[in-house]
């Protein structure tokens, strides 16, 4: 186990390192320096600015300084908003995005698993058919399309829910629904197929033969095992939710991290793009690492020390 965790940990560090390096050199390919556009600063000011941000140093030195800034979690200033640093944007935006993300994952998990279990129990029945239709639709409708449709129908036409911002529980309904539908659909499909497979296993027949109540069989014997595949895709789903927050926050004018990231992209604010990309990637890779370890602990069947053939 320890060896497995160590190996995963090294992968995590390597991945973050590669992303950071990729980001750095890609951004350096861009022509021009951050300080030579629009306003013409005089020669001395220009040189002082460059010295201040170590832009006059050789690329290798800049690279080392950059890696150091990542290790110390200091992502530097924003170019377009001089009063802000990437850290201050992260500090303000991340809690809001995290709130949106956690609610989304929770609701997607609960409703997805419930939908999948009911569909599997009523295999080929009406509920199964309805649940799987919802699931395929949920996978097919992009979150930003769903978000705009929800605003148009529920907020503008019917006026039942507020269309934007993030100030009260009512404000949170539409963004969370728009963001959670996709993951919910994926979880429902996965739960259903895995549940169908589990229900044919011998130990379920055995449990039934022992005379256990159906509810106990489903929850304790079937669901526990059927949820293993869902755990494996949690990392990928999390990545989807995280990138989803970019558009959802943009559409609903939620002052989260995604909004600053998209603004950074639109204004070509390179330090903000670099900082948030590295931060997001590190966060995601850390989550993948935790999911991997959780999976290793939850499923005693997988041999952690051995590389699987598949």
């Amino acid at each position: 186990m320890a060896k497995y965790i160590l190996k995963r940990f090294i992968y995590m560090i390597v991945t973050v390192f590669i992303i950071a390096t990729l980001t750095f050199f890609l951004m350096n390919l861009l022509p021009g320096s951050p300080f030579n556009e629009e306003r013409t600063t005089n020669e001395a000011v220009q040189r002082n600015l460059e010295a201040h941000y170590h832009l006059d140093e050789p690329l290798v030195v800049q690279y080392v300084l950059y890696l150091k800034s990542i290790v110390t979690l200091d992502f530097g200033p924003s170019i377009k908003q001089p009063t802000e640093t990437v850290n201050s944007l992260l500090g303000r935006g991340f809690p809001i995005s995290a709130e949106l993300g956690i609610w989304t994952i929770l609701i997607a998990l609960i409703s997805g698993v419930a939908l999948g279990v009911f569909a599997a129990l009523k295999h080929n029945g009406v509920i199964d058919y309805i649940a799987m239709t919802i699931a395929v639709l949920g996978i097919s409708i992009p979150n930003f399309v769903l978000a705009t449709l929800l605003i148009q129908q529920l907020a503008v036409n019917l006026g039942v829910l507020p269309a934007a911002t993030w100030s009260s529980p009512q404000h949170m309904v539409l963004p969370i629904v728009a963001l959670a539908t996709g993951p919910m659909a994926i979880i429902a499909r996965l739960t259903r197929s895995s549940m169908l497979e589990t229900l044919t296993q011998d130990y379920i027949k055995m449990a039934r033969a022992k005379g256990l109540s159906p509810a106990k069989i489903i929850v304790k014997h079937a669901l526990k095992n059927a949820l293993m595949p869902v755990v494996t895709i949690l990392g990928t789903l999390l990545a989807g939710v995280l990138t989803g927050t970019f558009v959802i926050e943009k559409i609903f004018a939620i002052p989260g991290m995604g909004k600053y990231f998209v603004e950074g992209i639109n204004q070509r604010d390179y330090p903000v793009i670099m900082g948030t990309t590295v931060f997001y990637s590190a966060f995601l890779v850390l989550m993948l690492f935790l999911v991997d370890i959780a999976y290793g602990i939850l499923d005693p069947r997988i041999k952690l020390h051995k590389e699987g053939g598949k």
Partner: protein
Amino acid sequence: MIPAKKQNEETPHSSIPDEWFKPKEKNTEDAESVVRPSLSYWEDAWRRLRQNKLAMSGLIFLILLGVMAVIGPWISPHDVDTQNLPNQNQAPSLTHWFGTDELGRDVFTRTWYGARISLFVGLMAALIDFFIGVAYGGLSGYKGGRTDNIMMRIIEILYGLPYLLVVILLLVVMGPSLLTIIIALTVTGWVGMARIVRGQVLQLKHNEFVMASQSFGAKTKRIIQKNLLPNTMGPIIVQMTLTVPTAIFAEAFLSFLGLGIQSPFASWGMMANDALGVILSGDWWRLFFPAFFISATMFAFNVLGDGLQDALDPKLRR
């Protein structure tokens, strides 16, 4: 075989004619004939796919969409980027079948132009993923040992990279255009295909037909191309079908963020983004057409992929 009424008679056995007990003449001519025509793998898969109504309606929708993407902008009397300011934000009518946008551009023409972009991006991404993924996965699985180990380590690291973040980063650097979108989507997109091909090749490579090929002195490239790949086409096709909606989603997502196709060209993601600005004024057609076609196209590819998976999966064959 005996008619039912005979059982009520007193002596049922006596009613059976004696000739029923004579051995049948042996037919030497037809003995070898097969009752049903034998179906190849692909014929069988096609037969099964045809029975799947949902998958077939997806396929038909996609064929129609493909046709409209080609002839749609051509049959429309309006240009894709001709602005007509007096005609802005008009509801669907006989002159503008899907209405017009805030610059008076024809939404009908722009929708089919968007279909071109979406289908092109989706198909190109699937095709490039196919070539890289098959070559990489095939080589990795077939060679095995140290080569496989190193190649799989690289894949594991690439797999850990967040897909859309890398794509966004690449687009910021390369600048938005159709070509850069396809490049950005395929830089890490082929990893899924490579993993599937490798898994299949690992299962197949110890079969006798591969050994036979090896003993005839076939080279690695030939064995992968002629022996291994044809036997993994099922999962490969399914994976390609499911890559297309992912790429279409990514393109729409990026265009929605302003990183994709740029005006004056049209893409569904961009049209949906533009529609967001006029959502309060009740111009429903601005959002409806791009939203409907993105969703319907992704739906069609998803159900077709599911159907193909059922039709091509050897485990489900009887």
